[in-house]
């Protein structure tokens, strides 16, 4: 279980996180949504230990990750997978070498086993035949898939996705969502997905958290978020969905098109 406890973080006097708290149970994937610039990626980087908070704790399996020594933190991070917004593939390595990199550096597998594992992972993400390409030769969707393969090849316990579908066309967005859902089924990882792809993301997450004003304003199931009384959250969701998808409560007919769309999303 991961517990984010009262996290505060400022940049140059601007307080981005003002006591954000959230719990992620084992095997649970949480969608972290909220307006742009609210600090969702910052919160995600804190969970990965890439940033240190001004105050607050992140507890993973009973240990505060900011109290860990360098070696312990490095060991902990081996259990994390992180899909960066732009993939963050090593641009001097081919797709194959990028995916093989964690296996070569962190395991004692032979080159033959590594090859088998990497090719299998690339097949899973639909990148068979692209193993000799460099990141600069990949499209946005392919780069995300390659980065996902690299993040998953070490069978992580925790997966963190930083806007995995930003800048991609709707078909690729759908396929990335399907890929995350299927890999979650396969690996059973816990995870946080920072995304603006609403309601697509609700199809495979167990919980939704809304970061607003530096705090987690809402936590609930995807179904509950559509029923919340919190005006800010409702407005945000309404802004994210087409108008006919989420009419105001007073106007909503019992079996509206909105319900259909919501049910499809859930």
């Amino acid at each position, binding site marked *: 279980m991961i517990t984010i406890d009262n996290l505060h973080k400022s940049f140059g006097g601007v307080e981005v996180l003002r006591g954000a708290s959230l719990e992620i149970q084992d095997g649970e994937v949480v969608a972290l949504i909220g307006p742009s610039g609210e600090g969702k990626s910052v919160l995600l980087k804190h969970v990965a230990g890439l940033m240190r908070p001004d105050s607050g704790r992140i507890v993973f399996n009973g240990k505060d990750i900011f109290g860990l020594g360098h070696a312990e933190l490095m060991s*902990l*991070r081996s259990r994390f997978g*992180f899909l*960066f917004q732009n993939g963050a*593939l090593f*641009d001097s390595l081919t797709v194959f070498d990028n995916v093989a*990199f964690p296996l070569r550096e*962190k395991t004692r597998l032979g080159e033959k086993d590594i090859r088998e594992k990497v090719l299998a992972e690339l097949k899973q993400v639909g990148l068979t035949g692209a193993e000799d390409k460099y990141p600069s030769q990949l499209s946005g969707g392919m780069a995300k898939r390659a980065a996902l393969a690299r993040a998953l090849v070490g069978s992580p316990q925790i997966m963190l996705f930083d806007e995995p579908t930003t800048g991609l066309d709707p078909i690729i967005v759908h396929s990335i969502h399907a890929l995350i859902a299927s890999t979650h089924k396969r690996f059973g990882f816990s995870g946080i997905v920072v995304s603006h792809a609403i309601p697509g993301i609700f199809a495979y997450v167990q919980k939704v958290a809304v970061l607003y004003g530096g705090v987690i304003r809402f936590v609930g199931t995807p179904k509950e978020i559509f029923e919340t009384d919190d005006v800010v959250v409702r407005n945000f969701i309404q802004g994210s969905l087409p108008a006919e998808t989420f009419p105001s409560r007073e106007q909503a007919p019992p079996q509206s098109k909105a319900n259909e769309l919501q049910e499809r999303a859930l």
Partner: protein
Amino acid sequence: MGNQADRWLLTPIRGLGRVPLSVISNMGRMGIFLVQALFFTFAPPLKFFRLLKQIKFIGFDSLLVIVLTGAFTGMVLGFQGFYTLSRVGSTALLGPMVALALLRELGPVMAALMVTGRAGSAVTAELGIMRITEQIDALEILGLSPFRYLVVPNLLAALICLPLLTAIFNVIGILGGYLIGCKLLGVNGGTYFGSMSDYMGMKDVLIGLYKSICFGGIIAWVCCHKGYTAGFGAEGVSKATTQAVVLSSVLILVCDYLLTSVLF
């Protein structure tokens, strides 16, 4: 009104303190970076293939620029030395003069400045781009130390390559001086080389060696630090690269003065 007057008066005074505070905190950050780099240098495992790659990049790929600048520096020294020495009738001392100037001073400094411009700036740009595209974060997430993968190989490669490049610079420079002094201006070739051993000792060679090792460390330290801590976007990388070249060059010259005054 009073508050406004206070602001007008106090703001410049507060501003006075901001510059030294920023300089001191930057120096502190650079110091911590160096300690971390040294720690990972002596903590195994060493990324050997990455080290070889950086030796090729910093050392072998710099050969052309070192040979060219070494040759022209030696040739200029040949002309200037001959002109100066001919005024006091001592052109026979052209060889030791060229060699001493190169070994003790110009070789280490010029080679270091050339490597800063060619390889140091590229190292900063590479690390800067890796920083802004989150590749350094990706290394950390994989549980791997960016220092071990990116900083240590550059540091060791610079420490190994700088003395070798300086030696090549010196040899080419001495040959350049010979070309001008002996082939063009008529100084006896035997005297040019023979008098070198009379006026030079191992100490002169060692001074140059110590300097080049220090300069190698400075280049790797400053250039890696600037790249590693580059700001956002293309502007951040370009700023970091400029700062790396300027700061390395200044520190090389300051360090050269300090070492010269200690080892004189």
